[in-house]
């Protein structure tokens, strides 16, 4: 009996190797960094609103402006092809749902960004201008588009690297929003 049991050792080793391989291939794209900021407060920042003239006196927007209700912070640029692809979905979300969307125009020309919003529509409550990418560094952004979903207290509850599309909205963002609402209905849990 003992000898027979030993015959199964190679099979067991094989199963373990296949298991590792399966898990490995199931892993996300290695380019998708896990967000270091998840479940942490959105960082303090101070950034101007998107405006064409650089010398203009612009009010600086801070983290306070993002508090009070869940908000989707979307990092975009006119040089980013995927941002064009996700734009229609952002427009739909802005039109059909009550979710606040705030734009961060990342390493872009303000003139091109304003023309983009005029041409394709503006889904954003307001757009911050991050010409040199320093706000992006604070956020751990390494490309565009990237999106952060914040709860009413400014905690990052979800991060997406890549485009927001109907499937992502349905499968990933809606469930998180549902969870937020449940938390908001129970006083004291979310504070």
């Amino acid at each position: 009996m003992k000898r027979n049991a030993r015959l199964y050792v190679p099979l067991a080793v094989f199963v373990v190797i296949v298991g590792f391989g399966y898990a490995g291939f199931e892993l996300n794209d290695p380019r998708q960094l896990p967000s270091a900021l998840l479940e942490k407060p959105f960082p303090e920042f101070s950034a101007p609103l998107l405006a064409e003239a650089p010398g203009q006196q612009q009010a600086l927007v801070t983290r306070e402006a993002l508090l009070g209700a869940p908000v989707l912070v979307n990092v975009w640029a006119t040089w980013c092809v995927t941002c064009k692809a996700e734009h229609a979905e952002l427009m739909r979300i802005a039109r059909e749902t009550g979710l606040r969307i705030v734009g961060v125009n990342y390493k872009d020309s303000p003139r091109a960004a304003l023309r983009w919003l005029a041409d394709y529509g503006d889904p954003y409550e307001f757009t911050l201008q991050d010409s040199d990418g320093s706000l992006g560094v604070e956020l751990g952004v390494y490309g565009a588009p990237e999106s952060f979903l914040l709860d009413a207290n400014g905690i990052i509850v979800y991060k997406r690297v890549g485009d927001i599309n109907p499937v992502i909205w349905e499968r990933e963002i809606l469930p998180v929003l549902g969870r937020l609402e449940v938390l908001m209905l129970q006083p004291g849990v979310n504070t």
Partner: protein
Amino acid sequence: MIVRCLGALVLLAGSAVWAATPVDVYQFPDADTEARYRGLIAEFRCPLCLNTNLAGSDAPIAQDLRRTVHRLLVQDGASDAAVRHFLQERYGDFVLYDPPLRWDTALLWLGPALFLALGVWALLRVLRQPALPPLEPEQRDELQRLLDEP
């Protein structure tokens, strides 16, 4: 003529090397800070490129992060540990080529030792197998008969 051609070639080769290496022009208050800067940007992995460090990458995000490291060192007077903490807080373990030992990285760190131990264990088992007992005379005859069969 030949000397000129060679000279042009040398110049060309030189310019090619320069074109391939990202060059930032930063001012440093002293050589020590510059050395720390060089050390730090060599230490971090570029978040966009899977296997290049910040020093070697031409990606825009690597440029931004080099600028950030320079700002932290020169303007804010940050220590090396503070710079590491700053980048890790924002970009996660991904940017570290030397990940910290935690429970979720334990397999990464202890895996090689584990496999070495398994190998040594298997090797010892094989080496310690008792030698086969010698054949009885009739067994030997039987073996010879089998070997001699056409």
